[in-house]
């Protein structure tokens, strides 16, 4: 087992964990967290691919590495937008739930 394969498998496991959290948690903030966790796993798969491609004096293939950097920035923008939506929803209604009005009432 080499480093790339090990962390590739870690990425696979993180994807599963993140997906689980995204589906199961009712709280949107936890969903956003789970999405970021899932994103970390996806980026690690890219990282494993990059490390496997080490050649020509480079420690890894620079193309997937650069893609991860772009992806990290996009993931941050997504998080910022989601958090702002959630905070605004909280300000307006005092609750943080994705249920429709009729479903939210007991």
């Amino acid at each position, binding site marked *: 087992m080499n480093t790339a394969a090990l*962390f590739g498998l870690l990425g696979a496991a993180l994807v599963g964990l993140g997906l689980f959290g995204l589906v199961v948690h009712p709280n949107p903030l936890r969903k956003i*967290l789970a999405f970021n966790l899932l994103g970390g796993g996806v980026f690690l798969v890219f990282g494993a691919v990059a490390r496997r491609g080490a050649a020509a004096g480079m420690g890894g293939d620079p193309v997937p590495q650069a893609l991860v950097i772009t992806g990290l920035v996009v993931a941050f923008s997504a998080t910022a937008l989601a958090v*702002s939506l*959630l905070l605004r929803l909280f300000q307006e209604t005092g609750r943080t739930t994705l249920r429709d009005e009729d479903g939210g009432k007991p």
Partner: protein
Amino acid sequence: MTISIAIDVGLALLVLAVAAWIIAVRDAFAAVVGFVAYGLLLALVWVRLAAVDVALTEAAIGSGVTGGLLLAAAARLRSSEAPAANERPGATLRVLTALLCAGISLGLAVAVLSLPDPAPTLAPMAAANLPATGLGNGVTAVLLAYRAFDTLLEKVVLLLSLIGVWSLAPDRAWGGRPGPRRVVRPDGALVFLTQLLPPVGIVVAIYIFWAGADEPGGAFPGGTILAAMWILSMLAGLVEVPAISRRSLRVVLVLGAALFFAVGLAGFFVADAFLAYPMGYAKPLILVIEAALVLSIAAILGMLVAGPPERTEER
């Protein structure tokens, strides 16, 4: 050899444990704190994967700024946690979801392990074309030359998400300043830190961007460190968050992308294609674009963390 594998295995298990804890823990605030640790551990993983550029970006954006944003949100949402509990899906659904997710992980693991050997790679091609860009860092060459169009579009993504965040403001607050007013405590420890750290941070940010041409670094981590200094100063109350209607703020926000577009369009005429650099001028042009990007990234990230405007400007 075996020691380094042992370190890797330990690191992987630690990341997995922290991730499981983030999902399982009840308190949302605790989960966010766990996420910051998760990001820092991932940065270590990136170093182990010989991707120092990514490690810097992960530590700065993935863990640092994202963590700060989520911490602030969790703190503001603390009073809202209880009612969500009755929406938790039932045990059967949870088990089914867990099985499905485990299946996806398993399929992914099979796919990762069945990747071809020797691995296909663009590293030799990227290295062979480095002289044409004048750069020494392959990742920077990919971001600003080979795949510059991705980077350019991603700058537009950042701007669009900022517009999206701003669009969530109440109508009356439009044009005003984001966030509540901060009270300055001149004796506070935070103020003390804020007086000391930014000069150092700004030097570090410039160094990381400048080194990025040939060594790990670049506009993204550089811009994020600059943003962190700015956010710190705003938190300590030493610097006011600018009103979003300020023309100078708008100019700084779009500066990087605008310059990138301008150089790209100039490529139609002075080089042979959109986003092509004229022979011999590639490196200076890339550095100028990156310098503008550092400023713009810092401004956009800072404003994204600050959130939508909440206070109307007092005139």
